[in-house]
């Protein structure tokens, strides 16, 4: 899993007034890549029940990173154990999106403040 930030196709993280929820986008990935019928998925669906084995999981993580523009840490990559259900996986992705957005918004503010300092004084 790469450590650099990946440009996501959109900043839509499923929070706020998002049109498509994280869960729905995860369902779309599973439908597209793993021939899982999206309509049959609920927050309680387990990855194990979808026959997502360790290799398929690696591919799923890769697709999640590309779709949401996030980077899943290596330590979390063993998600089959950590995230038994799609609901848990969805929450995990939401947290990473929030962390990414927080980091992105913190940086320009800090730079702007530094830039303003000489002029203000």
């Amino acid at each position, binding site marked *: 899993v*790469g450590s*650099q930030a*990946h440009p996501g196709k959109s900043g839509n993280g499923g929070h706020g007034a998002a049109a498509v929820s994280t869960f729905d986008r995860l369902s779309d990935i599973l439908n597209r*890549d*793993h*021939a899982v019928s999206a309509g049959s998925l609920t927050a309680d669906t387990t990855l194990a029940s979808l026959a997502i084995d360790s*290799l*398929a999981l*690696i*591919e799923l*993580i*890769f697709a999640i990173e*590309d779709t949401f523009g996030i980077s899943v840490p290596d330590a979390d990559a063993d998600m089959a154990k950590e995230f038994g259900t799609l609901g848990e996986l969805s929450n995990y992705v939401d947290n990473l999106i929030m962390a990414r957005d927080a980091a992105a918004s913190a940086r320009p503010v800090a730079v702007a403040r530094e830039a303003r300092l000489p002029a203000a004084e």
Partner: protein
Amino acid sequence: MKRVAITGMGIVAPGGSSPDEFYAGLIAGRSSIRRLPTDFAPQLSTRIAAFIDFDPALHFVPPHMRMLDRVSQFALVAAAQAIGAARLELNDALRARAGVFLGTGMGGANSIEEGYATLFRDGSDRIKPFSVLLAMNNAAAAWIASEYQLRGPSLTYSTACSSSAVAIGEAWQRIRHGETELMLAGGSEAALTMGTMKAWESLRTLATEDREDPAASCKPFSRNRSGLVLGEGAAMFVLEEWEHAVTRGAPIQAELVGYGLSTDCEHITRPQSARPG
């Protein structure tokens, strides 16, 4: 020493993707050489090859398909044909010693090139997570062994043009010496990539296109021959110990009676002409 029968054949080739279709094409003298339909063809000086119109979706479900380079897809389809034709009923005793020997010169060339394009052309580090599985030369043999649970030796030979012949000959040896009753052997190649074509072009070994008839560009033994034409495909055979085949009433296609192996040390590309190589 045991005798060795060929009891099943499978093929995926530009000239036909079943033994019957392929044979009919040979008898009719049909050439499979044509202009490459791939999008990089305009960047090549030599744009002819023997390319297969192959739709992997007809043979594999998407999650499995994405783990298979084109070279493994060809090999698996050819292996399925061969095993079907041999009317094999694989049991545990047979599976425990049966193996897969496969020849390939360039293995997962398409996957290797795709990975390099991502890295060096697109400047991205988003290489497919299955790149290693896709590209490794032994993938095709490993997939076949895994598909049919053949737990004997699974080896991949890479000896340029002789790769598949070596794989078949070595498999013959195993049966001949009584080490196993059953081997799947053959070869697969799927290297019609931009990089591979360019590399051969650069070696100045490719035939120039026949302007009147691209299909006639390969002219072996002709005075106006200009080189070779690259192609792709796979062929797999079921090799079976003779008595085993006879006992189960197998459809014996041929007997493989001999095989020899030596090295022509003359030159890296030019075969010996004076002595048998």
